[in-house]
């Protein structure tokens, strides 16, 4: 079931098109990452979904409800980038308030804060919290009442690697129970293997929308092959791989070459054929950052 449907969504500010005819869907139980540089239109897209700003053209549907309507608000949870709260309130008071706004029992605040690792700090004022702790309060409020759609704006900025892993574990639980998740991020490395689909925004346009494997195939970047020559075999190796670039350092005599995806078996055969000259080899698929940069650049 599609929980979020954007069609031809367009937003302009002062004649400048920030979001240009974007089509995107998120289904129940699906996690979609929205990637893009600063100013690519990620936050604008999210604000349109939340109904905080109005689109100039196109439409947003949240399980059949218009953005910002009571029906939509009841189903969406939002985690803003750099979640902020009034410093004079304690974590418990803030979460209890949010629970009441959703018509739930405010006594659930303690359990929610414990779930995000803030059990000890729950009764302290938010003004004394670190950035990561505030982000956790933000996460706790986003978990209220098992939302159908979660909109998370750079959710892991400010979290340390361990917290980040815990965060994605929580997200996986939610997705398993049918929550649709739309999250934004700067880097592909960050969302790798944790999302079902990746949508890339570049200058307001959706330039890619698919699984990581699909994006990888579409980018069709060459793999990188590193060869280390066996003792005294450097010259022979260079002769066998004339396209390689030679580099000598304390670790030995190296050769680096690019290998298009379609030729990877052929290159493997050549390496096997030159087994006497090769002491060791590594094959690196194109890095996620390479793919992301390639797709963004191609669009521009």
């Amino acid at each position, binding site marked *: 079931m599609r929980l979020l449907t954007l069609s031809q969504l367009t937003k302009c500010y002062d004649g400048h098109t920030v979001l240009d005819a974007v089509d995107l869907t998120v289904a129940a139980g699906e996690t979609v990452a929205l990637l893009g540089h600063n100013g690519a239109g990620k936050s604008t897209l999210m*604000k349109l979904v*939340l*109904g*905080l*700003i109005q689109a100039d053209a196109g439409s947003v549907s949240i399980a059949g409800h218009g953005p910002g309507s*009571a029906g939509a*608000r*009841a189903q*969406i*949870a*939002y985690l*803003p980038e*750099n*979640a*902020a*709260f*009034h410093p*004079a*309130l304690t974590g418990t*008071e*803030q979460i209890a*308030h*949010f629970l*009441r*706004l*959703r*018509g739930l029992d405010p006594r659930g605040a303690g359990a929610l804060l414990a779930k995000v690792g803030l059990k000890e700090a729950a009764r302290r004022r938010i003004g004394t919290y670190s950035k990561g702790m505030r982000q956790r309060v*933000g996460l706790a*409020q986003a978990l209220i009442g098992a939302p159908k759609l979660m909109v998370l704006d750079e959710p892991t900025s400010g979290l340390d690697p361990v917290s980040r892993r815990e965060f994605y574990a929580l997200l996986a639980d939610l997705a398993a129970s049918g929550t649709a998740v739309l999250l934004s991020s700067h880097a592909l490395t960050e969302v790798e293997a944790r999302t079902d689909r990746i949508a890339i925004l570049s200058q307001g346009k959706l330039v890619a929308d698919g699984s990581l494997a699909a994006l990888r195939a579409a980018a069709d970047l060459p793999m990188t092959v590193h060869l280390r020559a066996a003792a005294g075999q450097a010259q022979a190796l260079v002769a066998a791989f004339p396209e390689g670039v030679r580099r000598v350092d304390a670790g030995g005599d190296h050769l680096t070459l690019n290998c298009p995806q379609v030729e990877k078996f052929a290159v493997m055969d050549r390496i096997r054929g030159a087994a006497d000259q090769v002491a060791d080899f590594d094959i690196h698929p194109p890095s996620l950052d390479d793919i992301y940069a390639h797709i963004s650049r191609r669009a521009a």
Partner: protein
Amino acid sequence: MMLRRIFSTARLEFLIALRNRWVGIAAAMMILFALVLSLAGAAPSGAMAADRLSVTVASLTSLAVYLVPLIALLISFDAIAGEVERGTLPLHLTYPLGRGELLLGKLGAQVAVLALAVSLGYGVAAVVGFVGDGVAAVAGLGALWRLVWTSVLLGAVFVSLGHMMSCLARRPSGAAGMAIGLWLVAIVLYDLGLLAAVVADNGGRFTASAFPWLLVLNPADAFRIFNLAASEAVGAAAGLAGAASAIALWKPLASLLVWPALAALLARAAFGRVQP
């Protein structure tokens, strides 16, 4: 459900006001001024009034006209602009909480702070009255009670106007400036302007027809007229309120009742234009 959301917002705002010391500051200001006025302020009225408390109420009225709107604006100007600056507004507006509900919650909490402050301040005046005059001070209780609820209405008007400034300015510093400007214009310059017009008119048509209405249209003047005219202490008041003693009582009362709703609607309209 709607009431629950408004109450929860009001409860949170009251907590914030308590911790930001606004409750303490507002109460301390009112108590201090009420104490000074009830101990010393009765002197100029001489033998005019029957009891000391009634006279104190007249002095308190003149003071409350300045102080209540000032406190109301001080505790309200940050309401929306502060949320915009802290970045807490977008999240609030994604909850099932209407903009009107959010404003009503803040209004409720801030009016409660004011109600607490004026009740404590005027309560101190009552205590001083009873200590000084004994049972005779009972005569002034009606006027004092009237002063309490009209002060709360006047405060509600300026809390909502503060919210409006907060929405229009979008930044706390700008909202503070606008709030002080509003206070100066509505409380100080408005009366001076009217006074100048009356003097220039020298008993002509303006003084007879337009002036009473212009006086009643300003909630602060309506507050003063209503309190002074309703009690027997009119003689203790000088200036504009004295000149307006001929105004029928229902007019300032209507002004005091309509203004809180009108100001709240103005604030809501201004809030509608804020893009988080």
